[in-house]
């Protein structure tokens, strides 16, 4: 399939995936879009990683992004909090347009929580200190308030008893749950998950997914890059399939899994689901 055809297909799939209701909403509730990405392009040197990405995320919406490795899905969500710079297009988060201005970037990062594949906890700080650091120094909360908030979130991810340990003393699943709590302590508007379960043993994947499902049920806006298709089915409002730096297809989960439009998506789902 040529690239032009693919793009054609992608756009048709895109428009087809959006039910009329959502178009209506876009007209009446343009404000309700928490994240608006328009015409996003990114290159690593000569390599074109993200190609003409358009993506709107409403408040409270849960989006799962899947696709083969190297398709640019991680890069896309890393652009949202400016861990990666983009070269063309615009990203607006909660009314703030992402520019090169450092103040602007820090404002957006305060509103966007991120959970990494490798947890990235701070190994020299205790679990509690990991969670209170940013609220104290960025949100200027008092130590007492920050600790109270941190303990609340640690309870919600079910590890309050580990608060005084160091990350190195915890299992992978526990560390990832701490990482989620650490992000939540900043009261973000949206949470980005970059393959949160890929580095975990099978036994620990469930405990992390359970926390994420709970979070979704509480109405958090979430964008998850993941290969956990079960999670996508349960939680997602919209599943996005990416390949070669473009959004190939997006649809609600039932439609996406039962009735994929593009050949590429069918092939991918065939490989992911049937084994």
């Amino acid at each position: 399939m040529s690239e032009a055809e693919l793009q054609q297909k992608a756009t048709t799939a895109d428009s087809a995936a959006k039910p009329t209701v959502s178009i209506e909403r876009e007209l009446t509730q343009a404000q309700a879009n928490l994240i608006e990405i328009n015409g996003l392009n990114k290159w690593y040197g000569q390599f074109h990683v993200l190609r003409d990405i358009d993506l709107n995320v409403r408040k409270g919406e849960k989006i799962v992004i899947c696709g083969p490795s190297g398709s640019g899905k991680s890069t896309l969500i890393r652009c949202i909090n400016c861990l990666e710079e983009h070269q063309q297009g615009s990203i607006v988060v909660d009314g703030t347009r992402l520019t090169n201005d450092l103040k602007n970037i820090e404002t957006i990062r305060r509103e966007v929580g991120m959970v990494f594949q490798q947890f990235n906890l701070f190994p020299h700080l205790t679990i509690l200190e990991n969670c209170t650091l940013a609220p104290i120094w960025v949100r200027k909360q008092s130590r007492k308030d920050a600790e109270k908030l941190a303990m609340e979130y640690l309870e919600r991810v079910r590890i309050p008893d580990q608060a005084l340990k160091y990350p190195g003393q915890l299992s992978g699943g526990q560390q990832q749950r701490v990482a989620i709590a650490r992000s939540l302590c900043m009261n973000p508007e949206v949470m980005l998950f970059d393959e949160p379960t890929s580095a975990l043993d099978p036994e620990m994947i469930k405990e992390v997914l359970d926390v994420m499902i709970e979070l979704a049920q509480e109405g958090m806006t979430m964008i998850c890059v993941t290969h956990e298709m079960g999670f996508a089915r349960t939680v997602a409002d919209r599943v996005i399939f990416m390949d070669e730096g473009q959004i190939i297809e997006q649809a609600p989960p039932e439609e996406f899994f039962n009735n994929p439009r593009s050949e590429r998506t069918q092939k991918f789902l065939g490989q992911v689901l049937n084994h």
Partner: protein
Amino acid sequence: MIEQELKMIPAREPPKMAVGTIAWLRGNLFTGPLGTAAILLIIYGLILTVPPLVQWLFLDATWFGASSEACDREGACWAFITARLDQFIYGFYPSEEYWRPNLFFAQLAVLVGWLSIKSTPWKKWVLGYSLVIMPVVSWFLLYGDIFGLAKVDTHQWGGLMLTLLLALCGMIASLPFGVLLALGRRSDMPVIRSLCTAYIELWRGVPLITVLFMASVMLPLFMPVEVSFDKLLRAMIGIIMFQSAYMAEVVRGGLQAIPKGQFEAFDSLGLSYWQGMIMIVLPQAMRLVIPGVVNTFIALFKDTSLVLVIGLFDLLAIIQAGLNDPKWLGNSIEGYLFAGFVFWIFCFGMSKYSQRLEQQLHQGH
């Protein structure tokens, strides 16, 4: 049948020959004909050398006396050291003011003790005092000319006191400068990056002896005549600038070992560059570079003896000067042994302290 197969195997004692003294001897000393021969040879060598050495160093040694005449030539002449000990420690500092360097030494000992004993409180404050206030206090204490203290000019300073001063100032000042230079060299801003790189490459490429000559001979040529800049101060600044370049490279090694994820994590939490560096990256990086930093400190401590080329009398220089005293001719072995011993004590102390620090800061990752 199946239940029997599933029975767990209990832990058992290791076989006799794997543990215990005999196993240790077999494993480490007598590991075969060649190993056994080597061990026996070493034991024979020790029997030949150690007893005469002890005889010379201690048993036949003369400990006190007024000149070389008093010494028995069979043993070491430690009288040379004991008779001139004051000078070796204080240089030409006036003897009625010895309490001031003594106070300085005492302060140093208390601080080092405080910081190395695990259970003492207020460690952060004590560390802050040692790094910021202590050098200033020490300067005024030793130099005087304030609070009714008699002025003691820096050309009268010498011996161990001077060695410690130079080394301490070099260590305390080079660490923060080194950290800044290392951060600068990894900066995204091209101007800062090239400036720091140029500084490091320039100072690292010049021998310390050249730096000291420059500081003592060349620098005054560029200064207006009215500005007379203390020679000791110039040497100190030279040492600090030189040492900062080395420190920067050691610290940079640590910075590079911090995974990219740590930077991304503090970025994504909204922490600023400096917040992230000070609270996340540097604490981890500094822990990694303790061995390298202490290595640099030890090298610096020994390098301070180079100040003798610009006419400052540190411990080694003052011992050398003492060797030329007609009363004490022929004691160079004792003099140099003593100098080596004192240097070794301090360097070994630093090394032990750093090992302790590494253990204390280890958090199982």
